[in-house]
Each structure stands twice: as C-alpha cells, then as structure tokens.
C-alpha cells in the first residue's frame, strides 16, 4: 500500500530533497502498523512524539490503510 507521509520539525532533514508541500510517498506491505512505518523511515520512537492519521491521534499499533495521510511530529515541549 502507498502512504502519504509528512514530516515536521527536524524530522525531514534525513530525507534528501524532502518536498515540504507534498511530503513523502511510502510503500509498505498490507497490514503494516504505524510502528512499522517509523522503522521503515528509521525514526526512533523517542523522536516521534505525535502521529496523526487525518485529524486523529494514533498509537504505534494502529494499522495503516491504503492512501492514508500520516503526519509525524517530534516530541513537544514548550509554553
């Protein structure tokens, strides 16, 4: 299945020619989870603070589906 993945903060730095407007198109086997996606992107768990599919916050075990729009953010800190 194909996923549209957008990376925020510094996460995109590891991907040469990352297109901030379009993100990445990633192909993963059917049944893959959010955690599988992070492993595929080589983003460690400690670097992924918040993951959304659409407007929904998801956990690592969430199954992905064809065409899903996934947004990955670094851990948040601030005020």
């Amino acid at each position, binding site marked *: 299945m194909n996923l549209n993945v957008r990376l925020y903060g510094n996460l995109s730095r590891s991907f040469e020619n990352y297109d901030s407007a379009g993100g990445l198109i990633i192909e993963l086997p059917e049944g893959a989870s959010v955690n599988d996606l992070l492993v595929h992107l080589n983003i460690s768990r400690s670097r992924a603070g*918040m*993951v959304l599919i659409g*407007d929904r*916050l*998801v956990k690592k075990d969430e199954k992905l589906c064809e065409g899903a729009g996934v947004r990955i*953010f*670094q851990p*948040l*800190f*601030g005020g």
Partner: protein
Amino acid sequence: MKIIRVDMGTKTITNEDMEPVFTGMGGRGLTSFIINDEVPPECDPLGPDNRLVFAPGYLSGSPLVNTCRFSIGAKSPLTGGIKESNVGGTVACDLANQGISAIIIEGKPGPDEYYVLRIDGDGKATLTDAGNLWGKRTYELVSGMKDIYGPDNSITCIGPAGELQLSAASVQTTDRDGRPCRAAGRGGLGAVMGSKGLKALVIEKNAKKAEGIKDRKLFKDCAKIFAKAVKEDEFSGETLPELGTAVLVEAINAAGAFPTRNAREGQFENADKISGETMARIIRSRGGKTSHKGCEHCIINCSNEYVDEEGKYITSSLEYETIWSMGGMIGNDDLDAIARLDFLCDDIGLDTISTGVAVAVAMDAGYKSFGDADVAVRMVEEVAKGTDLGKIIGNGPDAVGKHFNHHRVPTVKGQSIAAYDPRAIQGMAVTYATSPMGGDHTAGWVVDQNLEAFGGTIDALGSEGQVEASRNTQIHMAAIDTMGICDFAQTGLATPEGINNVYKMISAKSGKAFAEEDWTNLGIKVIKAELEFNKKAGFTKEQDRLPKMFYEEPLPPHNKVVVISDKEMDATFDF
C-alpha cells in the same frame, strides 16, 4: 543577598537584608510571598498600596545555564488577583550578580512625576527624573538611554500602554543585543509600573559573580551534566535553535487545538503559511537569523531575528504564542504582518497574547473582518495614540467584549487563554481555570502529556487524569519559576539523575539538604500563598471556570466541548 525598597511617594530608597523566612527563595516564590505579605488584597492595583516586585530566580547568576529568568509580581489590574509574569533577557543575571534578590516598588508619586530607577555597578540605587522620557516608545527609549547611561545596562521599561495604565500593558526588558524585545507580557504589570511613575529600571552590568554558593565545585559538576543534556536533547539542542517555538504551529494545528478566528475553529487552513518551518525558510532566504541568543547564559538560542525582504530588522523574537494571537486567532496568514504586530506590541509595551485576542474579539463582534492584518495594525497603533478605541483594545479582551456587548471572550479571571484550545486539550482547561494567574499556559503546560500518543496515557479529549496532570505540573512549574530555570531547558532533567541533579544544585548553593519533598512543598507553598491572596481579594471557586463558549460550542474538527466538571476543577487545589 539584599532587597532594595523604593517608595515612589517619599522617594526613599532603603536596602534591606533578606528576611530569614525568604531564605532559598527567588523568582515567583519571592514575588508571590512579598505580594501576599505586603499588599492589601482589596487595594486598587493602580494605587499606592500595590507593590511591584522584581526578582531574579534563586539560581539566576549561578553557573547553571538558562537561568537568567526574571519574575515581576504585583496585584494585577487585569485579573484583580496576584500575578507573576516571567521574562528572560539579561536583567536577572545582572541583579543576581550584584547580590540583589528583589526590588520592591511601593507608593505613588505625585501627578506628572516620572522616574528612572538606576542601580549602578556597586549596587547603589538612585531615582532620577524621567519627565523627558515619558511618552517614548520602548525602542526609542532604550536607544536614547544608551547615550545617557552607556551601552552596558539591562533596561526594563514600559511603553505608552504602561504609561496609560492599560490592563494589557507589558513590561519590556532588553535582550543581549540591547533591544527591548523580551516581554513580561501577562497580567498588565506595565500598567502597575506606569502607576508608580516608573519609566525604566536601568541596571548596570558588571563583572561580579553571584555570591553565596556554598559548594561551588559540586554545583559546577551538576551544572555541566544539566547543560550537556540540554545540548544533546534534539528539541532544545536542534529544533528550537532552528525553528524556535513556532515549531508548535503545525503540531497544535494538526491536533485541532489551534484556536482560530476567536476560537470558532481548532484548525487554521493556512497554518502552513505561518508555521515554524515556513518562518525559518523566510528568515534564511532574507538573511535574518533563525537562531539567536536572546537571553544571557542561554545555550538553546530559541530566539530569532525576523527581517523584511531587504534584510532589514522587523522584530525579535517571533514566537509561537504571538504567531497564534496575531495569526490564526485573527484569521491572518501574513507572517510579515504578524512580525510587524509583534514589533509594535514590544514598542508600545503590550502583551501580544492579550492584544491579539482583544483584536480577535473585536473582529468576532463584527467590528472588522477576520484576516485583515492592516486593520489589526491600525487597531494596535490606536493604543499608542490613546484613542478611545485604543484604550479599549489596550485594556484587553474583556474590555473589548464589554464595549461591543459581545460574549465570546476567551478569558479566565480576565486574562485571555493562550494558543491551546481547552476543548481539544482538556488538560489545558484545568490549568486555565485553576491557575491563580488566570488564563495562563506556562503555569501548567500539559500539552505533551495530552498529545504525545506514544508517551502519554491521557486522552486529550477526555477528563480522566487531567486534574492530576495539571495539578502536578502547576506545582512543578511554581518551583521551576522560583528557581529561575527556563521552561525550555527542562530537557536538562533528562539525565540518569533527572531532577535530583537540580536538587543537588539547590543544596550546593544553600548548604542545606534538598530533596523531592522539598521541591513539591516549595511549589505547593507558592501556589497556596497565591490562592490565599486571591481569596482575600474576593475570588471564589466561581472564578475557576472557563467562559461558557468552551462548555457550549463544540470545536471543529473534533467537535468536543470542555468535559471537566466543576467538581473536578475544584479538586485541583484541594490542599
């Protein structure tokens, strides 16, 4: 360590030793204890009985990085309760290095009397006439003061908004480059300073170092561990220096918690135009600085210098909260206009949060259209001119709501909420409602615990666990703000020793044992003093509520309202 007390009525300046009861205190703890002890709770915030207290953090001026934090306290003209507003820059280190724990401004001068309080390199304080400086905006003021006092001073001052004693007036202080761009924005403390006839506090820098660290070697060893962790953490070591706090725009917007058009929606469709990533690209392409050291003793450098297309300085530093209040909250996607509004607020001496929300309420009431940045600029300029409309805007969102008879006013205890909608991050509902400071985000920022699905266990849209999270964070932050540790430097706690490393430094400084229970007790003691003051000032649990809009209007895209019950709110501080 000493306290300098200045009576603006009699022009008397006295040096006092710190009372033993204040030993180990600094920052918010010290300002709040002094206010609670000395200020009649029912007094006029702009009258002679109020006190304006300036205090560096307990660890300011020490070898620990990111501790140049300055607390300013008073009874707030905005909330009617106790207030501590916290700011960086250089002044906290300069005062601490001179062995000054606090400056208390009391009394009130006669009409048309205006002063500068100067503290020279030897710690000697003098009041000088500032009649010729009254009326000046802050950038012009500090530029002129360099000619009078030389270049090596920290200047803490007010602009026209403070002089007019408007309730959203800030106290501005200079950054490392001598610009008055760091703001103690919240609570209208600029108005209190204006009521005291005090235009500026000018502290001479010197090479002295703070005394009073009993075990300097131990302190330094612990400070090194802390600094290493701050540098090694990706957020404080890389993300903040590159993108600043504006990195939060996309994240909070994605979570549906970015209050848009006076909090009618939780997502701004043009957030990508005002995001941290976009801001960094614009700054880089124009030759500005994405990373900038705004505060003394800082190793994070989250500040920036935003420039125009010709590379000319517009403002420093453009931050998340301002990008929200002058951006999404008023439906404005023009980052250049946001930067200009940020500069204007610093120059006029206005809280960017309260001012942006005041403009948003006016737009929501139909006074002007959302998204019109030129109108927003004109409205803020009106404040400096002292027009009727300017005074309404400068008095904050409640004044605007009252004027337009408009009831969608996102304030608690008169102070506007910040850039996290409580309907999409329910933990922030608890903090906004129960903080003795009014709608305040730094008092108990529980956004991470709500949104980080991988680390957190709290459902951001539910009530379970929110009270406990907010309570614990508020207690922790009361202690952090007493010590004067920068909020963002808390990544320095991510060591095997964790916060015990900070306890060791406190102990190394004071010479007394300090452990976890002391930290918690400190935070509780500070909050208790603040609650006690507010109660005596007439606050009841009824003030620990959000405006009806948050309970009645579902916020897209999650279409939720605040679900924390009154009973749960009241359990937050059940001590």
